[in-house]
């Protein structure tokens, strides 16, 4: 009885402790998400008759969305963007950086700081900075380098748009990956390596049989965070290409923005946002379940 009372009191205390986080979460995350679901079932717009008198249209926006080739294109572009920049680019380079920083190499702190530096620039600033390097014409930085070697200049954002967007996002995210994976590496006990070394394991075997398995929870936690956060990347892509040329770099976030704030169809844009939310949730759940990561 006394234990129950204690338990209840403890639960109430925990609730009070959680309240400062719970209230903003409800107001700023849960409510907008629920409201987006409602909006997606209306023809709400920023201009025209629908702005003054929006109507309930049921699932019409979703039916239209699923028959819209541009929407499927945006999902494909998002897939390439996430796999290319978050899962391959940032992870691989971040992991290499984390391992390199553990070793006693000359200039390691400078190397670490240099990798973290891109995070200091806001997305849009980073985007414009890269435009100045990748743009066509003989004033762009990369073009100047090519011209110096006697090569014709290339408009990188026109010729290889998606690859360039992937590259820039990789550049921007290596630091975060490095920090997270460095923390994971630090948690691997040194004794295990010591024992493996005494058993005659070579570096490759130690990496494959010790480092990777013991890092798995950290790696998958990183994958979860980076996948979900990369799906929602907007400012960088919008500043770089606005989703073009054509729709070649129109990731789902840019597609949603274009529908909502360029074509001014808020209801239809909200339907796209709800689908993006469902995709992110599904991926998150899949990650968590596949490795039983404690989040």
């Amino acid at each position, binding site marked *: 009885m006394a234990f129950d009372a204690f338990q209840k009191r403890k639960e109430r205390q925990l609730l009070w402790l959680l309240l400062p986080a719970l209230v903003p979460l409800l107001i700023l995350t849960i409510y907008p998400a629920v409201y987006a679901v409602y909006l997606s079932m209306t023809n709400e717009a*920023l201009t*025209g008759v629908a*702005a003054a008198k929006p109507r309930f249209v049921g699932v019409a926006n979703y039916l239209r969305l699923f028959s819209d080739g541009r929407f499927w294109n945006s999902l494909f572009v998002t897939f390439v963007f996430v796999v290319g920049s978050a899962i391959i680019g940032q992870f691989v380079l971040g992991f290499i950086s984390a391992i390199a920083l553990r070793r006693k190499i000359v200039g390691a702190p400078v190397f670490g700081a240099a990798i973290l530096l891109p995070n200091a620039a806001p997305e849009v600033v980073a985007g414009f900075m890269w435009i100045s390097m990748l743009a066509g*014409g003989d004033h762009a930085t990369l073009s100047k380098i090519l011209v110096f070697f006697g090569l014709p200049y290339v*408009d990188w*954002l026109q010729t290889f748009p998606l690859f360039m967007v992937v590259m820039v996002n990789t550049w921007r995210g290596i630091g975060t990956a490095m920090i997270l994976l460095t923390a994971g590496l630090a948690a691997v006990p040194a004794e295990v390596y010591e024992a493996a070394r005494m058993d005659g394991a070579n570096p490759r075997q130690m990496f494959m049989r010790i480092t990777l398995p013991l890092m798995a929870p950290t790696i998958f936690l990183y994958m979860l965070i980076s996948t979900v956060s990369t799906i929602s990347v907007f400012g960088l892509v919008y500043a770089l290409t606005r989703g073009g*040329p*054509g729709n070649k770099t129109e990731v789902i976030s840019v597609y949603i923005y274009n529908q909502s*704030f360029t074509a001014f169809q808020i209801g239809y844009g909200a339907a796209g946002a709800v689908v993006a939310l469902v995709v992110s949730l599904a991926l998150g759940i899949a990650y968590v379940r596949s490795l039983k990561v404690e989040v």
Partner: protein
Amino acid sequence: MSFGPAVNAQMNEKFRYSEKWKECSILSCRQNVSVYIWVVTLRDMRRRRAVREEIVNKLVAGGLAAIALSLLAGTANAESLRVALHGQAGIDAFTPTAERIEKNLGIDVEIVEYPAPDKDYMTKLLTELAAGNGPDLFSIPSAADVADMVAAGYLAPVGAELAAWPEYADFVDVAKQLAVSPDGETYVVPYILGIQQIYFRRDVLEKAGISTEQPEDWADLLARAKEIKEKTGSFGLLFPAGVSWGGGAFDEGFSHLIIGSSTPQLVTEDGKFDLTSQGVLDVFQFYKDLIDADLMPVDPLLGPEPWVIPKYEMFPSGELAATTCGSWCYIFDWGRESRNPIPDVTNVVGTWADPGQNGGEFVLANLGAPWAVNAKAANLELAKKALLEAGSVENQIETAARIGNIPASNAVQKDPRFQALTELVPIQAAANHGTYLKQATGMSVVSEGVARATEALLRKETDAAGAQQILVDHVRQTLGDEAVK
């Protein structure tokens, strides 16, 4: 026996100027010291609290004084008006008018700078208007947006004010007609016009021995573009297209052709959109012919700011020999206000009227960023008075000088300041002969549909019939089946 290091440190600190603690016995001394430390700490706390209170009091007093001063400053003019402007040229052009409004109406004008590209400006403006916190006075870059903003309830009717305004009698008829919304009311002051034609590099054509005569019809125009490409290697003709150009794909591209087609209007008598017509199909076929023959620079049109390379780089350098443009090109794009001016622009760059599909000549007229009043303006009457100042002859001339649009009032013909703008004088005199597209609610959706359809053509994803289907589908899906004839 010795005290702990912490106590010793405190004693040294507190009794720095006293030797009394050395005189007591160890036990009593330790008690005395403890008591003394508490007393000193308490006194210290009180002193700090006093200092803190003093600082807080000073901050509060200072803050109150600042608020009072700002209130006093704010009441220099009891009323204020928030005006949305975008683009440095627009801000420079409007600044003298803002000063006149302040002087004549005795109010403060707060100029708020919005994002420069029209598309981003409209996004911010519409979002704010929808949220109910839009500016009191603003301009609308694309005339295709006006009817939809009226339908959304964002614009205050100003027909009565314009009718009672003596200066309005001098406005050319085409401007007044363009300002009337589908419901018969007027919601904007049509102070300047965009008079558009095809601009070509006379020097490039003459040098290559290509005719500079007015093309007779679309076939002749296309043949001229091909000849330019063959003889000079330059792109022969540009019609703005694609999603990135925003409203320009419709206003500065598609409209030039549809007015000369077999079905020159998009809106039927009952207010529906006639988009399945032969004229619309033929316009898209003309785009396709230009693109397939590589007569139009396609790559720049798919980039984020598609006007920059063709208009500001390729045309001045002669890499592009002809393009649709408005009177502003003689001043803003390639003239004295340009960053990349063409020397002797009025002689080097000539104009052709838009040829009709089967003959005829058309000069496209549309409203140039008309001013409107927010229906939810804090002080509607005041905002309407300021609107008339924005429509004044002075603002028309200042805008013409900075940007190159055509003043809507015939009164400018007697004004020496306008007479000095020699590039614009003959165009203004002929403004009343302009042809224009009838507006209807939903026109902004048609404009977006045209942008999407022409984008598909640019990317060579479809043919003319497919582009027309993209336009029809977009309008049907957005406005409903009943909106399309």
